[in-house]
C-alpha cells in the first residue's frame, strides 16, 4: 500500500502571534515552526502504523520553500520513507491542494492523508480540494481507520456523535484526534532521516483564488470581575442582568 501524507508547517503552539508590514504579514521573528500537529500526530503516525501492519510505503509531501526542509526531515525521522517538497510559497489552500493533487495523480497512491486542519489557518480545506481535483472520495475528520485489502473502515465525527463508514481505496482521508498517538523520533530515526530522499520539484501553474489582505488582533479583555465564592447568587445575577447570557 502506497500512502501519501500531506504536511504543513505551523508556528509552535506557544508562539506569540504578531504581524508586520502594516499588519499584512505574520511576524516570523523568533517563531519556531513545527509540523502542523494534526498532520504529524494523527495523519503521519497512523500512516506509519498502517505500513507496519500491511507493508507498503509512506511518502510525505509539503508545498513550501527551502527553510521548510527542517520540518520535512523531522517527518522522515519519525519514519516516513521519502519526501517531496513542491518548491513554492504556500499561498492559499486551493494553490496547495492543486499542487499536491497534480503530483499525486502521477504517482498512484492508495491513500492520501491530511490533518483535519492547520492550527494557523484552521481552514479544513486542503483534503477536500485534493479529493475533488482527483475525483476521489473524501472521508473527513476520521478518528479511527483500519484497512483490509482495498477497503478502509473509518469512524468519523458527525453532529452529536460518530458514524462508521466504509470506502474503497484510493481515497483521501483527513485525520483528527483519536487516530494515533504522537511519536517522538529516536536517534536512529534522526540519523536515517539525513540520507532519505527529499525530492524538490517545481510548482505547476495554479491560480490563487483567495488572499489575506490584513490581520487584526482581538481586543484584550478588560479586567476580570472577582466574585465571592460563597455568593453564587451574585454570579447568576450578573450573568443574567449584566452579561445577559442566561
Amino acid at each position: 500500500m502506497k500512502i501519501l501524507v500531506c504536511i504543513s508547517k505551523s508556528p509552535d503552539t506557544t508562539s506569540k502571534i504578531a504581524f508586520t508590514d502594516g499588519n499584512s504579514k505574520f511576524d516570523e521573528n523568533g517563531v519556531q515552526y513545527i509540523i502542523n500537529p494534526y498532520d504529524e500526530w494523527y495523519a503521519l503516525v497512523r500512516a506509519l502504523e498502517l505500513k507496519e501492519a500491511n507493508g507498503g510505503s509512506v511518502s510525505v509531501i509539503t508545498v513550501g520553500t527551502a527553510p521548510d526542509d527542517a520540518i520535512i526531515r523531522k517527518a522522515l525521522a519519525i519514519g516516513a520513507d521519502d519526501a517531496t517538497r513542491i518548491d513554492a510559497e504556500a499561498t492559499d489552500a486551493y494553490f496547495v491542494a492543486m499542487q499536491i493533487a497534480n503530483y499525486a495523480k502521477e504517482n498512484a497512491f492508495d491513500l492520501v492523508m491530511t490533518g483535519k486542519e492547520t492550527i494557523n489557518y484552521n481552514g479544513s480545506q486542503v483534503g477536500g480540494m485534493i479529493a475533488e481535483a482527483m475525483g476521489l472520495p473524501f472521508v473527513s475528520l476520521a478518528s479511527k481507520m483500519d484497512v483490509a485489502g482495498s477497503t478502509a473502515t473509518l469512524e468519523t465525527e458527525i453532529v452529536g456523535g460518530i458514524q462508521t463508514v466504509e470506502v474503497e481505496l484510493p481515497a483521501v482521508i483527513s485525520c483528527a484526534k483519536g487516530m494515533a498517538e504522537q511519536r517522538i523520533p529516536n536517534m536512529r530515526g534522526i540519523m536515517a532521516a539525513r540520507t532519505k530522499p527529499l525530492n524538490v520539484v517545481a510548482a505547476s501553474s495554479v491560480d490563487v483564488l483567495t488572499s489575506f489582505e490584513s490581520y487584526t488582533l482581538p481586543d484584550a479583555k478588560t479586567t476580570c470581575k472577582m466574585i465571592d465564592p460563597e455568593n453564587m447568587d451574585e454570579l447568576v445575577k450578573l450573568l443574567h442582568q449584566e452579561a445577559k447570557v442566561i
Partner: protein
Amino acid sequence: MSTLVYINSRDGIAKNAYEAITYAKKLGQEVIAITTGDADDSLLATAGEYGASKVLVDKSIATDDAQQVTRVIASAVEATGANTVVFSNDLVAKAVAPRLSVRLKAGLISGAIAIPEGDTIKVNVFSGKAFGNVKINSDKKIISLLPNSIQPEQTGSACSVEEFNGNGGEAKIKLLEVKKPEGEIPLPEAEIVVSAGRGLKGPENWGMIEELAKELGAATACSRPVADIGWRPHHEHVGQTGVAIRPNLYIAAGISGAIQHLAGVNGSKVIVVVNTDAEAPFFKAADYGVLGDAFEVIPKLTEAIKKFKASN
C-alpha cells in the same frame, strides 16, 4: 444575481442553518436555499422566515455524502445563476465546501465571522488568537460561516419548496453505523458550555459538572490532559488541538488556562473561571472569576441556577 445557501435538513434544521440564511440575506441578493433528503416541505419552508425566496430540494440523495452533495450544489449554481454560495461551517460543510471550491473554481473563505467589509471578510485564524481579512479573487465566491457568529433574524414568512434534480450520482462512501449518545448537546453548536480540567482530580467527580450543565441546558467539555488520560471522551476536548468553540457562556472549573486551551475558547462571549490558584492564567482571559474550590463552588452555583430558574 442570487446567493445560494446550503442547509442540512437531515435531522431537522439546526440554528446554524438559519444563521447562514440570515447571513446570505445580508449580502443583499436574492437568497435561494438548497438541501437534500426527505425532510417535510413544511419544515423546509421555514427557510423563508429568515429570508430565502425558495428552497430547492433533491430528494434522491439519502445521505450527506460530500461528493453527491457537491454535485447537487454545483447543478443548483448553474440552474440559478448564483454567484455566491454560503454554508454554515459545520462538519458537513467542511467536507463539501472545499470540493465545491475546486468544482466551481470559486475561492472559499472558511470560518467567516462577519459580513463583508468592502471586498474582504473577517475570519478566525491562529486558532482564535487573531483575525484575518480575506479577499476572494474569483468571480464565484464561497463563504462558510462559523456557527454562532451572527444571530438568526426572522424577517419573513414561509417560502415555496421545489423539487430539484441535481444529478448527484452514486455514493462512494458506505454508511455502516451511526452512534449518537442520547440527551447530549453537541459541543460545537452549544450556546452554553461547562468545562472542567485536572483540578477535578478524577473522572468520578464529573457528576457535579454534568448536573450544572443539565440545569443550564449546556454541553460539557474538558481540557486536553483530561481527554488524554481518558477521564473524558476525545470529542469533549476543547482547545488548539481539540474542538474550537464560541458559545455565549463558557464556564471553566479547575482549568489553569494554558495558551493552547485559550485558543479553543477565546471566541466565547462570556467566560467564567473557577480556580483555587489566584495566579491561574485563565483569570486574565475571564470576564468573571471565582477564586475557590470547584468542589464547593460548582454545587453552590448549580443551586443558585435552580433558584434563579424557579423565580423566573
